[in-house]
């Protein structure tokens, strides 16, 4: 039992599973630090996975596919930010709307393009970097990309003018406004960044699986959101929590092979979320204005 966990393959699998949690979780820190709750991560993940599949399908180019995924992520996020920042609508409702919309529209175009509402054709996947053939996971460009983005995100959020202004807008938008900072602009950028990060994660999902399948986000967007919260709205925490979820899911995969209660074991990552949220992590403090549309008070 232990040897099935304590080996390189298990570690590799955990890291691989963590990627589509870690990227959206990183993106969500920007959105939420700026004061916009983005539960549309799930839908963005799905739409960008589909866009990637289509991009690769028509061009045979992985790079074009990735760019399609990121662009689709940004576009979907733009919809969320227009609804919730420009028009001050409820951010949760907008997010739910996008998630439902994503399920429908991907199915529709999947049928249109691939003649099946549930599966796309097979596409080419990602080539491994082969400088370390013994450890294939370390040849995964997405893993390096995630690590790089983690460092950049941390630095951007806490050491730059942009990060300071973004955090200010998420904590006390009125104060930022009185100092001449455009609250809406900062919030738009935060949401779009979360779209770009999540779009990259969607690209990874499609390339990793060599196809698009209906509903393939499978709750990852929500888990990423939970990881961001458990990570206390910090990039490092968000990625650490994503690794934890990756590990838990990997563990449940191993245990399923050896057990006859597979369905119960599948719940491990979700149970873990709730248990951690309930207390181990301490009180999680969101940015003070997170989720609250900013409107100048009247009179």
């Amino acid at each position, binding site marked *: 039992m232990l040897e099935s966990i304590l080996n390189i393959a298990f570690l590799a699998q955990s890291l691989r599973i963590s990627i589509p949690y870690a990227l959206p979780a990183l993106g969500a820190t920007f959105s939420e630090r700026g004061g916009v709750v983005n539960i549309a991560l799930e839908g963005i993940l799905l739409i960008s996975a589909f866009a990637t599949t289509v991009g690769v399908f028509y061009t045979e180019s992985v790079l074009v596919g990735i760019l399609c995924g990121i662009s689709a992520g940004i576009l979907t996020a733009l919809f969320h930010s227009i609804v919730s920042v420009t028009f001050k609508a409820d951010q949760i409702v907008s997010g739910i709307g996008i998630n439902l919309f994503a399920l429908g529209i991907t199915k529709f175009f999947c049928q249109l393009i691939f003649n099946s509402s549930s599966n796309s054709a097979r596409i080419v996947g990602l080539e491994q970097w082969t400088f370390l053939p013994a450890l294939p996971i370390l040849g995964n460009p997405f893993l390096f990309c995630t690590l790089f983005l983690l460092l950049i995100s941390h630095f951007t959020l806490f*050491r*730059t*003018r*942009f990060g*300071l*202004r973004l*955090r*200010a807008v998420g*904590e*006390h938008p*009125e*104060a*930022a*406004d*009185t*100092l*001449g*900072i455009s609250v809406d602009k900062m919030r738009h950028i935060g949401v779009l960044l979360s779209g770009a990060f999540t779009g990259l994660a969607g690209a990874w999902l499609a390339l990793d699986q060599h196809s698009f399948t209906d509903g393939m986000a499978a709750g990852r967007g929500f888990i990423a959101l939970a990881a961001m919260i458990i990570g206390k709205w910090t990039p490092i925490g968000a990625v650490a929590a994503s690794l934890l979820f990756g590990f838990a899911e990997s563990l449940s995969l191993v245990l399923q092979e050896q057990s006859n209660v597979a369905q119960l074991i599948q719940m491990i990552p979700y149970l873990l979320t709730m248990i951690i949220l309930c207390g181990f992590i301490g009180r999680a403090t969101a940015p*003070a204005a997170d989720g609250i549309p900013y409107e*100048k008070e*009247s*009179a």
Partner: protein
Amino acid sequence: MYAVEMQHITKRFGHFTANHQVDFQVHEGEIHALIGENGAGKSTLMRILYGFYTPDAGQIYINGREVKIQKPSDAITLGVGMVHQHFMLIPPLTVTENIILGKEETNRLGILNLPLAAKQLTELSQTYRLHIDPSAKIEQVSIGFQQRIEILKILYRNAQIIILDEPTPILTPQEIDDLFKVLLQLKSEGKTIILITHKLSEVMTISNRITIMRHGKIVGTRETKSTTQTELARLMIGEEIGPPISKRPFIAHKDILIMEQVSAKGDRGVLAVRNVSLNVKEGEIIGIAGVEGNGQSELVQVIAGLRPFQVGEISIGSHSLSPTHGHQALAHIPEDRLRFGLILDFTLQENLILGRQQELRFRHYYFLQDSETRSYSSELIHSFDIRPEELSLPARNFSGGNQQKIVVARELSKNVPLIVASQPTRGLDIRAIDFIHNSLISERNKGKAILLVSSDLGEILKLSDRIAVMYEGEITKVFLTADTDEREIGMYMTGAKKKSA
């Protein structure tokens, strides 16, 4: 030429006109006081000058040149700075981060240079003797410190025209002196200062000229040295306030509230109320005087059943109080009306029967009796002069004075022998204060027992029959109001004089 000239400024919020055809001029290098009652439109006018609101009509001239100020960054560029009434500071950020926000020291890549900024701020704070610690976080520092940060924020942007919106009510007398010294220094450097306030004594001390607003309009501008507080008060209110209702001598001596050796813990787990014994008789107002934070709030919460007490006995009328459970036999005007007095999103009508919805007259089996509640509410609105008279308007949309009148109306119309009123007039305008004072006195004249807690010593002296001073959780002295004065009470409030053994 004026440093600031605003012409024909009009600003509406929905149907409400906050500023109507306002003309306002400020000379360069003067301290100009802008005074008026709450809701007179002072803050709105200054928020327009600062670009936080855009006016519906009118022009603004800075140093004689017409300018368009559409957002705060326009005002900042023109050298206008503003200290807002509610501080615009971001709690989890450091002092330095708060001050530089929007005008950050960075390299070409946008990376912050916090050490350089902190050094600049230290120099700036020394120049103006505004002592700060650049690396502290806002959530850790005092109110006076926060105000110094706000002023530095403006100086850091090198503002020449400085607006301060009601800077003094939150400060101690010592801090007010320090603030005024800073203002005089700024004036001596040629900066122009606009001070919003409604404290006339301060206006007379520090300002050069005074503009008075009422109901969104300018009613006059005066040279400080050629006016008087009486004239200013008359201009602010528009009429003389009548003398208060006189107190009827009350001779019955039945104790309503009896407290024996009561002790209770505060939020931090240490005793906040120590060994308090106090009786309030029918037809009597007892005022609790004290510097805030000496256990008055906790004492009120104990009596209202909102806080358990550890030792002692309390009874109201003939009912003895359980140490841990609330009860219904009193009217309570709470200190924080927005959190404990009202449900802001409920309507006026709902707030007026809040807590009484179980009474048979307001319900029919499990359903609220709307018609009965409606006529009851209309009566209260009329007798307590609550405006606007809209039963279905959420409490949130009323002015501070009218919100407090809603609380007072509900509580005073309960048929109970004891009224506990905590800071009943804080932040209200003169007219609302006057109304609430008269309401309390007339309840006293009807034979109610009233416990009044206020940090305004003038209010205590005006209303109370007896005054109890609270210091560090104890009642250190009880006076008959006729036998004492402000000075003597002050000595007990600060602990300079203590309990005579």
